[in-house]
């Protein structure tokens, strides 16, 4: 039996370069959390009560005590779609708190009393899920963009085909040549074709209508 052929994964390897923000009161859970993060060797900063902005740099991971006094807080950073991954630290594991936790879109959870075991896995899993989420979001945005530009090209092509009696290939090649000559993207030529056609057809309609 062989276990792995390549080395240890990047998520694990980079653990010690993580900038971790702990938003937790300085009680026994908070102290145990900080002590274990320091044993693991992460760079840690602890703040309580939590505030609305990150002063210096944006953390790579946030431990957040999700408790009654914070669940209605309106933090600007929390509303951003790509806020740093959060691991919730729960004292009360009841529906009110769990719903609050879902609204915060957390990537992991640990329950009080905080123990040294389990923390490392939570951190790695939260970072892993967050990285995957980011990659998926980037991929989705790229697909959406590609879809939009494809729609534009198709529309511009059909305009050219109709108005100039060109074949599909000829229409495409015409736009491509124009793009190369003007050193712009084919998409922006397609844009121009669509806009021009809108203006012209408006003018034509007016003429006919008058």
């Amino acid at each position, binding site marked *: *039996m*062989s*276990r*792995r*052929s*390549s*080395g*240890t994964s990047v998520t*694990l*390897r980079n*653990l*010690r370069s993580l900038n971790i923000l702990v938003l937790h009161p300085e009680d026994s859970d908070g102290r145990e959390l900080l*002590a*274990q993060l*320091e*044993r*693991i*060797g992460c760079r840690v900063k602890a703040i309580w009560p939590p505030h609305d902005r990150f002063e210096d740099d944006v953390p790579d991971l946030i431990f957040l005590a999700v408790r009654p006094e914070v669940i209605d807080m309106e933090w600007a950073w929390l509303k951003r779609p790509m806020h740093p991954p959060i691991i919730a630290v729960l004292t009360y594991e009841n529906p009110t708190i769990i719903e609050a936790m879902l609204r915060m879109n957390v990537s992991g959870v640990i329950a009080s009393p905080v123990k*040294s*075991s389990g923390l*490392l896995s939570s951190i790695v899993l939260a970072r892993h899920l967050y990285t995957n989420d980011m990659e998926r979001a980037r991929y989705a945005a790229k697909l959406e963009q590609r879809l939009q530009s494809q729609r534009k090209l198709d529309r511009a092509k059909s305009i050219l085909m109709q108005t100039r009696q060109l074949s599909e290939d000829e229409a495409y090649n015409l736009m491509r040549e124009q793009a190369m000559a003007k050193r712009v993207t084919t998409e922006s030529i397609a844009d121009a074709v669509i806009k021009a056609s809108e203006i012209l057809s408006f003018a034509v309609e007016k003429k006919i209508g008058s």
Partner: protein
Amino acid sequence: MSSNFDPIRIGVLFSETGVTSVIERSQRLGTWFAVEEINAAGGIHGREVELVAYDPESRPSRFQALAKKLVSEDGVRVILGCYMSSTRKALIPVVEKSNSLLMYPTLYEGFEYSRNVIYTGAAPNQNSVQLAEYMTRMYGSRIFMVGSDYIYPYETNRIMSDLVLERGGKKVGEVYLPLDASWEDFITLVKRIKGLAPDFIFSTVVGDGTALLYKAYRQLGIDPARMPIASLTTCEAEVRQMGREAAEGHITAAPYFQSVDTVANRACLQTLRQRFGHDIVANQCWEAAYFQVHLLADAMRRAGSDEVEALLRVLPGSEFDAPQGRVRIDEHNHHTYLRPRIGRVNGSGQFDILEETHHWVRPDPYLISHSLEEWSTRVKVVDPSP
């Protein structure tokens, strides 16, 4: 409430039977020996230390059951014991729940902290890094890994793989054999290794399999000077079990070898021989088992009791002149500052120390990605001949 003259009872769980009994018996001996010294010197403020020992038979479930018995029936607050990680893992819920203390005198794979455990054996940054650095420098970086089939070998091999890959090396094989693998299993394996001709073999085989591996190696005529077995666990106890002929020329990294030349070691070995005869051998696990009892006794004297809360206030940060040199328990992670060394088995079954660190090395049990550079302050060459 016990009177001030009642003995202080301490639990001991080292296997006297089963696959890892050879090394665990030597840990038991180290424990006994230290307690005799402590009692001879007046005990803990006049109170004698009394050991309550059972045989957990190298089985995790047995370790757990006996630990429960020790804390609930025997009224013990401190347990000295465990070799395999699987047995330590079985004990941790028991000591955490009962708020007792386990002192664990064995090298292991790291990634653990319990406020109820003190770790006195080497973490990977105190033996694996040094061994990888030495082996790749002296022999090359095509490595074949063989281990027993449990967690310690998996994790130790992960670290070794990273270190070897960092050197541009290559893993030519990675094999895990059951703890009770047979002679034929080892012969088949060593034939395969011989065919692949790696630069060296990294073995995380523990227990009785160790002797079989080294014997199979000798039987198939592989020259250790050209293609040695490197290990973190093969020490004097295993060498004695397999016979010096099978062991000679192979290499181990450990914080202690019997051949360490310190005043404390010479004095300790002299007393040991007077007590148990000239035939007795020491080793790294024996030494950790020995010095951790002295650390515990010192802590009990300072704390004035064997109450776990009191002990946990004084044990972290405490130091002792162990046979390997001065050691210290880290305040934050409960592991121990130790002194990495590289040794090679000589013709008399002892280790020639090839290299050693100038200072103790801080334990870093959560170090995921080790680097060969870390030992740059590393070693003085004791014997430059390869």
